């Protein structure tokens, strides 16, 4: 008797779920189509663009970039979703988010910023039922050779070239030693490990000492707090050993804030963050409150950083890029996506990628293809020193 009633409960639960799902279906479809016809009348974009970024706790720049394009085109035209903070282990959740947005027939292009692991799988799945969907990826984490076969356009900061420019900048700032913080999982990413090698060689040719320091993996057992604590404790140790003319660099976003703070406190050199931008790590590390009206104003933010760095007595020893690379990339990719959907050809050309990035950055941008790939580009923006 007990067995039977248990089965009943399960049966009722299942049927309840399914029938509710059926019941709700009508509402969803009508509201979608109503949306699109209204939008076309307003003279807005006649289609939608899907956009996936991290949350602000993962990296603020892309989220702010998304807010900027939403402000420009409207929340009903840009369907913004976020990938899980714990994106390395919650791949399924990320794929589902992409699939759900792609199911909206009005969404014609999809921007993945950043292209966290799972992007390739998500693109493959979407193309099964939406072969026409355009995919534009900013900063793919997956293997460049592999993802270039699936995405329409991929862009990322020229991390290989930065291996040289960062070391050169550190040298100009007076560095004698260069400390590179990373951990095995990051070093298994091809571009990061190659850049570390380039940095090492460049240091040798510039007469600087290169130190590879192993930090705890923020997705490992100690989590991000453990990794941040390590940086706060280790920078003073390294400065004690190698002196104040030591430049610090870390491959992980979460480590930038403690790295900037302890570099400023110990009068060490911090040439550039992993993802260069005035908003990446600097405001939090130096206690800069960004007011509501200054949120997107890079000039005001740079000025505030200048003042704080001067207060710490470290002027000329800390640097970044003048604009937020994440914001610039999202704005440029949105424009490229619109052009692609409107039928313009050659969006994956070097020239069109460069011109969109330049417009968004309002600064000089160098764009180069990655090896022989004609849809995977690396770009560099000129540095700013605080």
């Amino acid at each position, binding site marked *: 008797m007990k067995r039977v*009633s*248990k*089965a009943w*409960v*399960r049966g009722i*639960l299942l049927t*309840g*779920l399914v029938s*509710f*799902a*059926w019941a*709700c*279906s009508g*509402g*969803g479809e009508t*509201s*979608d189509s109503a949306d699109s016809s209204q939008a076309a009348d307003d003279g807005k974009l006649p289609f939608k663009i899907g956009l996936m*970024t991290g*949350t*602000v*706790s993962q990296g603020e720049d892309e*989220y702010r970039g*998304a807010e900027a394009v939403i402000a420009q085109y409207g929340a009903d035209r840009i369907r*913004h*979703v*976020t*990938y*899980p*903070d714990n994106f*390395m*282990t*919650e*791949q*399924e*959740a990320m*794929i*589902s*988010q992409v699939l*759900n947005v*792609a*199911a*909206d027939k009005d969404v014609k292009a999809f921007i993945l910023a950043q292209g966290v*692991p*799972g992007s*390739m*799988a998500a693109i*493959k799945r979407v193309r099964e*039922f939406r072969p026409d969907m355009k995919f534009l990826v900013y900063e793919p984490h*997956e*293997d460049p050779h*592999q993802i270039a076969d699936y995405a329409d356009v991929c862009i990322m900061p020229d991390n290989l070239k930065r291996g040289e420019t960062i070391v050169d900048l550190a040298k100009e700032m007076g560095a004698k030693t260069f400390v590179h913080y990373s951990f*095995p*999982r990051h*070093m*298994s*990413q*091809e571009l990061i*490990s*190659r850049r570390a090698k380039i940095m090492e060689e460049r240091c040798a040719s510039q007469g600087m000492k290169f130190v590879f320091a192993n930090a705890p993996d923020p997705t490992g*057992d100690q989590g991000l707090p453990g990794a941040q604590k390590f940086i706060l404790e280790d920078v003073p140790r390294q400065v004690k050993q190698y002196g104040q003319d030591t430049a610090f660099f870390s491959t992980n976003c979460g480590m930038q804030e403690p790295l900037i703070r302890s570099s400023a406190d110990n009068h060490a050199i911090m040439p550039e963050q992993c993802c260069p931008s005035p908003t990446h790590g600097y405001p939090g590390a130096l206690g800069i409150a960004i007011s509501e009206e200054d949120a997107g104003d890079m000039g005001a933010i740079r000025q505030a950083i200048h003042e704080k760095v001067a207060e710490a007595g470290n002027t000329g020893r800390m640097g970044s890029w003048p604009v937020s690379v994440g914001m610039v990339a999202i704005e440029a990719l949105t424009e490229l996506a619109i052009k692609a959907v409107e039928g313009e050809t050659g969006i994956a050309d070097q020239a069109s990628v460069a011109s969109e990035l330049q417009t968004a950055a309002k600064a000089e941008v160098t764009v180069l293809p990655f090896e022989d790939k004609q849809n995977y580009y690396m770009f560099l923006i000129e540095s700013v020193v605080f």
Partner: protein
Amino acid sequence: MGKLRQLALQNVVPILFTVLCVSGIIAARADISLPILANDIVTRLSRNLFLVLSLIIPVVAGMGLNFGIIVGAMCGQIGLIVVENQGASGLGAFFAAMGVSIPFSLIFGWLTGLLLNRAKGREMITGMILAFFANGIYQAVFLLMAGPVIPLHNQRILLDGGIGLAITIDLIGTGGQLDRLLRPSIPFMGLPLFIPVATFIFIALLCVALRGYLRTKSGQELRAVGQDMHVAEISGINVDRTRMRAILISTVLGGLGQIIWLSNIGTMNTFQSHEQVGPYAIAALLVGGATVAHATIWHAILGTLLFHTLFQVSPIAGQILLGSAQIGEYFREFVAYAVIGVTLALHAWRTRRS
């Protein structure tokens, strides 16, 4: 009336999750596409069910939820790495990966079993820490030894320097093989609903095998050990050996389940794919109404269905209810893990009451 109340109390977790899923679907109905939701739920069922089922045997044997399943998942990945390295492709390659994973699962499962037999009563936390330990070894082996020591030569899966595996491996040879074998579609609200029949048949075979096994003498011994180790020992059952058997079965099934999971996703996160396996499979089982002391095939099926429906629906529901993309994401985490916490607390409360 009293009976109904008791039933509701017994099934409070699945009921709570059903309510959450249904209200999530209602809240998100403007932004959610039902055919896609249905497709995703079917895919996730086919992808995850095998892994969730692999947890049942240790629960029956009184060893709680096997967090050590991550070790099995790593062995599954070893199978895939070996086969992808050979450049093999097709259904044969898929089963070859399974074949390669089994001896590894047996060796590492045996070691896990040895450890867990020395940590009776603390199997869950021991298994969890063991998984961290095994992860360290796995990373060391495949980052430093793949290439120079372990003869992996396929440039597609290696880093440029020839040492260490790439962070993601596109499963060209083994990806989607079982799913594609028999995957008819039925029209569902304007879009095709794909059903990976072959994968479901494979899972059904496992269900039948599990049921059958639990009725054999060996299976009955597992139950006896699960109910009371001391009594089982007195009645002449070799407790340690029985527990070892449970862990071996669970590890092997975990490896096979991971191959099904990854093959369905199509790409492997070389150094992280296994980490997500344990907590999620366990959460799904708990959501289905299982406890650390009692789990059935039905718990696994219902739990996988509810847990993954909520995972799919809640970010969108949160986004609509609270008006921000990232709050939707936090909403999902908060809801899913809160319910799992409640599940564990309820179990502790009930055990104390009885």
